[in-house]
């Protein structure tokens, strides 16, 4: 099902599905960091693959990215992106104060990948239950580098199907009352070949 042919009802279906998954992921994150986590309204972006790094804030922007493949009945990728300061704050919440700035070593990498794993699992498990399908996250991969370099791995798969990427994106923030809130972006990038699995679930393609 080509991305461009989706109508508004189908796009709303995808957003709603993602929202449900995100609710579970946010609960898991909240329990890990001991703070409430607030979700923004999800939105769907369909753009050329070449524009994805810009859409993420700039191809040169430094960020921590955790990516996972979706395996099982539907395929695609999940990306969890954190700006540097947020990755650092997240690590402080998880591991205790970690110096003044973000340092990547075996321990911090492992902790962040674990966060990715837990969020992706919560998200996919919720979706899987709703759709009555098996959705499993792959082993997470982490990179702390420029946005373009962090995401091109995810774009390689997608580009074999065409020139477009669809991203269902939810921004989340830690305790908004604190001066330094953990901010992150969660992206679901479905593979166009299995998009029907998501669409057919909740009421099916209308119209």
């Amino acid at each position, binding site marked *: 099902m080509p991305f461009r042919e989706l109508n508004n009802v189908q796009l709303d279906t995808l957003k709603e599905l993602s929202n449900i998954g995100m609710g579970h992921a946010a609960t898991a994150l909240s329990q890990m960091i001991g703070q409430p986590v607030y979700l923004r309204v999800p939105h769907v972006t369909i753009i050329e*693959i070449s524009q994805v790094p810009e859409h993420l804030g700039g*191809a040169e922007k430094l960020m921590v990215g955790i990516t996972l493949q979706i395996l099982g009945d539907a395929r695609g990728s999940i990306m969890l992106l954190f700006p540097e300061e947020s990755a650092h704050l997240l690590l402080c919440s998880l591991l205790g104060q970690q110096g003044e700035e973000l340092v990547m070593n075996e321990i911090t990498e492992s902790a962040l990948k674990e966060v990715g794993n837990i969020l992706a699992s919560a998200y996919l498990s919720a979706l899987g239950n709703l759709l009555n399908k098996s959705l499993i996250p792959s082993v997470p991969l982490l990179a702390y580098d420029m946005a373009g370099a962090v995401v091109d*791995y995810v774009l390689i798969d997608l580009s074999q199907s065409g020139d477009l990427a669809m991203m269902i994106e939810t921004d989340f923030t830690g305790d908004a009352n604190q001066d330094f809130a953990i901010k992150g972006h969660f992206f679901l990038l479905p593979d166009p070949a299995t998009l029907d699995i998501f669409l057919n679930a909740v009421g099916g393609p209308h119209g």
Partner: protein
Amino acid sequence: MADRVSIAQARIDQAPVVLKAYGLGSCIAVGLYDPETGIGGLGHMLLPCRPVKNPLGSESKYVDAGIYQMVDELVRAGARREGLVARVTGGANMFETAYQTLINSIGSRNARSARETLAKLDIPLVGEEVGGNRGRTVEFDLASGNMLVYCARGIEKVSL
């Protein structure tokens, strides 16, 4: 920006323009240049080889087809075919190869495809900065033909 070359794009231009590609991970940037006319091009490619059957989308997302296409456009723009030289960067392996999959070596496959395609076209490769596990940004100065490559959080810049 007119001088930015995004993923799966290629741009042809002339001195004194500086063509830029940002955030190269496993992607490869190929710079072709004719020193006499100052005409050059930068391609930002994602996949090593264009499939024979059912290729989807633009040519410039493939290393091999993208290089061929750039050479055609350069010649049409007035560059001398026999004067072209190449510089290549990118092709990093961004993630640890804890488990071997096809994807993990895509960076090296992109680099290999670039070398092979350039060899087939008889275009000398005069500078190369590939591999590793860091993202790169490249600035290709068409006034000099020089390619400046640097990493985020890195102080060193490499000049090709």
